[in-house]
């Protein structure tokens, strides 16, 4: 069941997409932290007083890929339980398999789904 006022960290390097996601999430009354690269995301995680309920992660980032991000995340005790949903445009089986193996909850192809549907799926996980 969706949590009341959940908080989400969205890591997406494409600003247009990020804008759309944040705007849509606003309509769902979800608190969001948006990052355009991996480094920024980890900075926020270090500094935030409250950790996000879920991380929305694009696989291809300018400074790192999804696997690297997951590895970094899992190394820190306080982060390792944060659920991650990968929303990406490329989905080779290897990638999907590897990242789910590292603990990602789901792997969603952006273009194939309505944004609404993706958000609903993500909120289900929280």
């Amino acid at each position, binding site marked *: 069941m969706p949590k009341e006022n959940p908080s989400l960290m969205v890591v997406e390097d494409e600003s247009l*997409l990020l804008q759309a996601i944040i705007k849509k999430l606003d*309509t769902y009354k979800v608190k969001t932290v948006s990052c355009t690269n991996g480094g920024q995301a980890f900075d926020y995680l270090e500094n935030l007083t409250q950790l996000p309920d879920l991380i929305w992660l694009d696989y291809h980032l300018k400074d790192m890929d999804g696997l690297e991000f997951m590895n970094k995340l899992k190394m820190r005790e306080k982060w390792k339980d944060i659920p991650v949903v990968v929303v990406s445009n490329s989905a080779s089986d290897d990638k999907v398999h590897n990242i789910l193996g590292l603990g990602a909850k789901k792997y969603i192809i952006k273009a194939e789904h*309505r944004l609404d549907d993706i958000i609903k799926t993500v909120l289900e996980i929280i």
Partner: protein
Amino acid sequence: MLPVFSIRTKLILAFALMYSIPIAILSYSFYKDSVGLSKEQNLNTVNQNLDLADETLQSTLNKAKEDLISIGTLSSFINYAFNKTPQENDYPSELVNDLYSFLTNKKAYNQFTFTDLTGQEKIKIIYDGYKTYLVQETDLANISNLDLFTQVKKLINDKAYISFSETGDSILISKPYRTDDEKLKGVITLSLRTSSILETLQKNQLSKEYVILINEEGNYITQSKSGVSSVIRDYPEFAEAIRTETKGQIFSKSISSYITFTHANLSQFSTAEKSWILMSIIEKDVIEKDIQTSLSKTLVYIAPLFLVVTLFAFLLSGLIARPINIFKNTVEEIIQKGNLNKQVNIKSKDEIGYLAEKFNELLDRLKDYYENLENKVKEKTLEIRKFQQAVEASTDGIIITGTDSDIIYVNPKWEFFTGYNLDEVKGKKPTFLKSGKTPKYVYEEMWIALKNNREYYTDEIINKRKDGTEYNTELAIAPITESGRTIYYVGIANDITKRKEVDRMKSEFISLASHQLRTPLSAMRWFLEMLLDGDAGEINGEQREYITNVYQSNNRMIELVNALLNVSRIESGRIMVDPVPTDLEELVKSVVSETKVKYTEKKQNIIVSIHSSLPKINIDPKLIRHVFLNLITNAIKYSPEGGEIHIFVSKNDKEVMVQVSDTGYGIPETEQTKIFQKFYRGSNIIKNEIDGNGLGLYLTKAIVESSRGRIWFESEENKGTSFWFTLPLGGMEARQGEVSING
């Protein structure tokens, strides 16, 4: 192989053997008869001669008696004998002269004696073989006391008395001498030389046969030259024989002679002797010599016979063997010179003639066949040369191996891209080309195909050249069979390194471009969604309609990108095949239910009919689902409202066959060859149905074929289309890959 024993030799030997036995038997019996006959004849002759000798003896003695009588009738003798008292000067010179001439003429007698009644010898004339002389009165003896004188005086008949002379060299023939008035006057005696008798006896005898005359005591009457001592003394059995037999024949081993004897017939004479025996002695050798003569006689008869028979055998065997020899020589000539125009020239009406006739027929046929063959060989050689040149000039690499995969041939093109030449690789297995980078399943699949006499194609092989550099090769390999047995493998190999590189770059480009396209497409999609959702405020009806059109176009673009991605994945061979035992019925039903919205919207009906005992088959459900989805979606899309779609899933012992039939627009006949091509869309449906990118069937076919299935269709415009595809019951083979098909 030359015949060691020619038929002729054999025939001669056979004939010789055949004739030798009767000839030998004949010779033997002839010889045997001849020997027996000869011996018997000889001994008979001896017997007869002995009889003859007996007669001769008698006639000689009779002659002597007659001569004695004739002396008594001489007038000179009568005058002398009847002169009572002869005076000294009254010498009977006339008588002496007569007697002289008598003895000299006769020569057989050596003495004549006249004895008066007192026993006093009166006249005695001796012939010593050279001259005749008168014994002097003083030397004349009185023989009155001699047995001879008394015996003769007693003789009353005409018989003569015979006795031996004291010296033993003469037989004395004596007679009483009487006057005409039968008054006894004295005794006359003629002495016959035994040598003369012997001469007479010997006259009729065989050579080396000796006839002797003995008395019963075994004493010689006549002397013999044979040197035989007293036969009777030495051989008691002979003495026994002459005592009991009048005639006989005995073989004496000690002197190695046949002795024939007969008692002389002395019945016309008077004698004191008990018996005279005529003996013939002939050496065994003489008889045997005659036997040897019969042997040579036999040879004289048999040898020519044998020669004649042998000659006959030669001629006959030659006659029989001649056609065979002609045959043999002709065959030899044909073989040596290869001259098939030659004929065996034998006209005989026997088996050989028949054989020759048939052989000639055979030769004719052989000739025809040979000429035919020659032409055919020429033709074939030309044909082969044509193919050989084609193979050599081929721009494809060609490799031929034996069933043991040892290389037999590679063409220049193959040499060119591998760097090896034919001499280096001949007899080797092509494994030296392996780089180790070719996926293992390629070789596995290849060998399975070849073992089952199927062709195999792959473009996934990565090999190594002679210089060590790697290259991609595509290989089409096919077994060459003869009467069901594989004898060679022929491979068409090409260096496709560049093509692979281009393909890879193309796929990468498409993949990259697609990914790049997806980001803006996603942004567009999501913002349009927000507009339509009213997130940016309410929009009016017309605005909604336009935005919806943009939204739908955007979605089609996304689908197109997805399809392009799948195509590029399929083409790059990076598709992963992950077969699991799959229930096809479940799969079909799930696809049907997934498309329910679409077909119910068009008031269509889908009828599914599935084989009742379909086993689970080992397929990649993701890929096969895509196939079903594509075919069913097409059927829905390209059928008018209210149409009916049939799905049949059946199986035989090898494969599962799926049929998807619709009652739709169909495919124009002129375009039916293009429908599996990329981006093809039927000219008749573009007007009715804008949705679609022309990649679906291309992808579907690629999936079915990569699963070792086949796909085909039948279609009639405005009547409908049926698609069939098969999947091997054995299932698909797993394949490592990077990506899977995107649904």
